[in-house]
């Protein structure tokens, strides 16, 4: 992704999450928007990929925001560990 900021309304429509769900996920620390008030919020475009995963998981498993936040935190840790494994694999000779 490039590193543009996207406005709340576009983030909402592109992610598939509702405004209320996004606010709750921000409260849970899943997203860290720029801007002081909700109306001024803008999101890193890289957060959109996470938001779309959140929307799919919420819809497909019928998850409440607190479970979703926990699941996304574990997913983030898993992705970091996978990245670390990839780096270590790169050090192994073929």
């Amino acid at each position: 992704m490039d590193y543009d900021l996207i406005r709340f309304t576009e983030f909402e429509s592109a992610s598939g999450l509702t405004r209320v769900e996004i606010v709750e996920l921000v409260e849970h620390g899943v997203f860290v928007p720029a801007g002081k008030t909700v109306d001024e919020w803008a999101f890193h475009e890289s957060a959109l990929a996470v938001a779309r995963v959140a929307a799919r998981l919420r819809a497909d498993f019928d998850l409440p925001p607190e479970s979703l936040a926990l699941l996304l935190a574990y997913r983030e840790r898993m992705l970091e560990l996978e990245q670390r494994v990839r780096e270590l694999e790169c050090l192994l000779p073929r």
Partner: protein
Amino acid sequence: MKYKDYYAILGVAHSAGDEEIKKAYRRLARKYHPDVSKEPNAKERFQEVAEAYETLKDKGKRAAYDGLGSHRAGQDFQPPPDWQQRFHASGMDDLGGIDLSDLFASLGARGGHGFRGGEIRMPGEDYEVTVHLSLEEAMRGTEVALELTVREIAKDGRVVRAPKSIRARIPPGVTDGQKLRLRGKGGAGINGGRDGDLYLNIALRPHPLFRASGHDLYLDVPVAPWEAALGAEIEIPTLAGRVALKIPAGSKAGQRLRLAGKGLPNPHGTAGNLYAVLSVAVPSVLTDRERRLFEELRGASSFNPRGHFAQ
């Protein structure tokens, strides 16, 4: 139209109740959901499972599905003569080439929101496509031609599949697993709704020499024992041509030598690094003179690579 056995896909009997169907869906969704599953065919399996659940969880759609009768999975079939009247699918005269999932999506669209009426604004569908690139293409950037099949709502309210050709610019420096968003390149919006987006999942093909991790590249560089011991200046390949690499005296196997900025470009205008991972290669067949010189070295050297075992 090809028959799909939604009950078999969910692994439940035709008599299964709503709760049993929901449990079966949840069990399979947990196993195959593409955001959490590592199963090789997770995406396709999840699509099947979601499609089956989407139909069987809805009383009206399930009745319409059951009304199609039982057939073998994959078998060509026609709905019974009165089926379209019974389930309000009138106007859908030619069902020959239609996919079963589109048929039930159409029923949902007509029964639920009435696309025909034209008053509800709906965004177009988003699509995700995996684009396979070589490391060279990732480094330079490239343009790819994509042929998609998108679902659209026809004027008569039917869900139809339409081909869509898109040329997409891939900027230099994309990395494996990165997602690129092409705004408005997905399915067409309905009744003035915004067009959907197209997401490109970047997958880098394995390279015969380089391994990529993010914007960094790794290259195995075998050196001779005397190059490792004495140091050397050698030439190695990079994605942008050959460069000189100084091997420091006393280098070890597994050591990483960093060539700053010789990896993939990144969006900040700089580039990742290229790491040369050293291995010490030994000739598998020695000439008589090489053998004598190694034997002489063995006699003359006090070096003990396993000295730390004794401590």
